[in-house]
Every structure is written in structure tokens, then in C-alpha cells.
């Protein structure tokens, strides 16, 4: 499983280019930072207060004034810009954070996303997730393709939405999918799986791009 998650994180890291300003959610999305190419400069948004997260702090560099949105003490890159919540989400809503990478409970074939609440369970709150999904030009979902065998990519979400028609790309251990006007298109398929495998693991009809490639690990 750890290997599969690393595969997903590594592949996701290839989505970014020099100068990008992006937001990485908590969990698997955070792992993406470890695989960003060293020859490009990507600035990571910490929605609680700055542009330019570096890494988790240790005793040698810990500053109690710098946490990430999960409450962990982190460090900031030298070019970091600190800001308040209004500015932070102004950048998000204004489309200046080019992409957000998030996990999902459910994604629908039209790009609807549900990843913040399960009715009847304890409520955590959306934090900044709704703003990120409504504001970022690209919402990239990274997740294991299914949850204990259950479909997560669906014809229609059953859970309350985080935002409608927001997901642009889905990266799982099985492949890379783009959400287009007419549905979900597989653009890369991992060599471990067949078209039939990925379709069987998906709750809506998949389209296979004529130029579909193999999902490469490195």
C-alpha cells in the first residue's frame, strides 16, 4: 500500500512546472512534495498562512510561529510570503494557486467531488477544502482507486459535495484519468492492470484515450 501511494505521489509530482504555485492537501497529497523535480521551483501554499512550505520542523529549526494547516510545525523557504486568511484565500479564489492536490471519498464523472463529510459520522468541517476546490483552476485527486473494494469514481456522488465539476485529473495506482466534458478519459494505464481491470474498479464508464500511455513509475 505504501508502495502504491508512493507510485501515485511520484506520478503526481510530474504534473508541475517551473514557477508553479500549488496547494497540497494533508496525507497522500503531502507526499507529492518529496518527489518534485529539483531543477524546477514550485511554491507550495499553506492555506493557514503562507506561500512556501519547506519541510517538517525539527528541534534545530522549529519556530512556534510557523505551522501548516494540519497544525504541524514546519519550516518555510527563504522566498516565503506570510499572509492572513483573507489574503490566503483571496489567492485561492482568484485562481492564483494553479492546482490543488487532494484526496477524495468520491469523484463523479462530471468532476463533482465529495471529500469532506459523511452524514451521521463525526463532523470535522471543510476547513479550506471548499475554497480550494471552487477556486483553483486545476483540482487533482490522488487516491487509491477503490476503498476496501468499493468504487470511489462514480456516475454521481452519493455524499454531500465539496464542489461541483471541479476535478480536472485523477491519479490512482491504476492510472491517470482526465475529467473532460464527455466523461472520464484514461490517459495513462499502469502496466500491472488491463483496461478491464480499471473499468471494473470504476463506478462509471471510462473512456480510453487513443494516445493512452503506460503510467511510468520513474
Amino acid at each position, binding site marked *: 500500500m505504501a508502495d502504491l501511494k508512493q507510485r501515485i505521489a511520484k506520478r503526481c509530482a510530474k504534473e508541475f512546472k517551473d514557477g508553479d504555485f500549488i496547494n497540497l492537501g494533508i496525507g497522500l497529497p503531502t507526499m507529492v512534495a518529496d518527489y518534485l523535480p529539483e531543477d524546477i521551483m514550485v511554491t507550495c501554499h499553506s*492555506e493557514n498562512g503562507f506561500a512556501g512550505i519547506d519541510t517538517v520542523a525539527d528541534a534545530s529549526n522549529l519556530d512556534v510561529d510557523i*505551522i501548516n494547516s494540519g497544525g504541524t510545525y514546519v519550516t518555510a523557504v527563504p522566498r516565503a510570503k*506570510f499572509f492572513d486568511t*483573507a489574503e490566503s*484565500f483571496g489567492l485561492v479564489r482568484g485562481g492564483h494557486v494553479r492546482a490543488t492536490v487532494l484526496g477524495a471519498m468520491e469523484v463523479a464523472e462530471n468532476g463533482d467531488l465529495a471529500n469532506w463529510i459523511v452524514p451521521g459520522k*463525526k*463532523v470535522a468541517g471543510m476547513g479550506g477544502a471548499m475554497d480550494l476546490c*471552487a477556486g483553483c483552476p486545476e483540482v487533482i485527486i490522488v487516491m487509491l482507486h477503490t476503498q476496501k473494494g468499493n468504487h470511489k469514481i462514480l456516475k454521481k456522488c452519493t455524499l454531500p*459535495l465539496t464542489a461541483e465539476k471541479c476535478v480536472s485529473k485523477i491519479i490512482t495506482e491504476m492510472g491517470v484519468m482526465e475529467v473532460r466534458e464527455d466523461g472520464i478519459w484514461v490517459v495513462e494505464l499502469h502496466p500491472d492492470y488491463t483496461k478491464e481491470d480499471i473499468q471494473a474498479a470504476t463506478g462509471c464508464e471510462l473512456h480510453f484515450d487513443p494516445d493512452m500511455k503506460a503510467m511510468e513509475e520513474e
Partner: protein
Amino acid sequence: MINKIMTADEAVAGVKDGMTIMVGGFLATGSPEVLMDALVRKGVKHLTVIANDGGLDAGQPAGEFAGKTARGVGKLLENHMVDHLIASHIGVNPKINEQIAEGTLKYTLVPQGTLAEKIRAAAYGLGGVLTPTGVATPMETEPDELGRTKKVMEIEGKKYLFEMPLYADYAFIRPTVADKFGNFYCAKATKNFNYVMAGAAKHTVIAPEKIVEIGEIDPDYFAVAGVLVESIAEGEKRWQI
């Protein structure tokens, strides 16, 4: 000339049962601890609290670094002083879901960016906020913090939620540095809600980590104008982990 500097107890003396207060901070980083302590000592009840979250509970880690006591809004929750929490995230402090289950705490969730703009609209005299955040989600269908139905407006082909300004009786804010007039800034990631809340409440109270003389530091450091600040409480310390 007006002297704004006082003790934390003096600064919260006007807070009454049932009032609405705003508290700066994000998981307690940037929260005014001396003011929370003073509110606990005063023992006011039935507060409506507007904050990003419910702070931290005693013994709960902020990341990997444990605190021994509750922090920020967590102090008010620990002492059952809150009736209604208006926040973007309520999952970290376990007291929140406990008190919801007990039926003693009501909550209203507001997306983080929307929460900031609603507060800013109150501080800056705007009639409301038009945000794309929350369209087609429960934010659109559920009533707002005062039970009002929300409107959706279509503007140039895109849908926006119309959200109302969010006012309070008191705003409790934690600057890193303030001068004796009340001009202030918050270092690094402690800014969070501490800037927009100044001016959104009838009374703005700050508890700076450091109080400097007027003119002592370059005015271009300051983010918020001292004219908005009514009281400056002494005694706030840098957080020790």
C-alpha cells in the same frame, strides 16, 4: 491622552454572558492566551465564538508537539463557556464533538476563505460577500449562522453564494508586536484571522507578545491600524513548547 494599556482582566471586563466574540488563531497558533485565561477567570457563559477552529484540548498535540493545557478557544470549550461555535474546522479538539453529542454546543460551519471575507465585510462596511465557494454543496442549502436562508446569484454566467457579514461584540487578537497606540502586526503564520477581526467587533482587544514605544519600529511593519484598537492587554508570552 487615552491610555489603552491594561491587564487582561481589565480588557475583558466588559464581556457579558451571551455575547458574541471573535478569537484569532489557527489551531491556537496566534491565539491570545492571556485573554482566554482572563475570560475563564471571569467565568462568562453562553458565548457565541467566531474562530477558525476550536483551538486545542489539554494534552493534545499541535502536530507532534504536545501542549500541557488547553490552548486558544480550547480553554473556553474546556470550561463549557461556549453555546455556539462558528468555525471552518471542528475536528481537531475532541471537546467539540463531545459537547455537540451532549447537546450543549451548537455549531455552524463556514468555509475558511468565506469566514475571512464575512468578517472583513463586517469590518469594512460591505453588504455581504459573493463567493463561488460552497455552490452546490450543503453551504448552499443549509441556513447561515443566524438561521437565514442563503441566496445564490448568477453573475455573468457563474454562480456565487451570497453570504452576510459577520459581526461580534468583542474581537480578541494576538499581535506579535504592537505599539502603545495599537498599531500591530503578527509574525509569520500567526496572522490568520488576527487581521480581519480587528474592526469587525464593537470592541477590539489585542494582547501583543511585545509592546513597543510609538515610533520605535518602522511603520511599514504594521498591518493593522491602531485606530481600530480599544484595549491593549499586557502579559502575552511567546508560546513555549
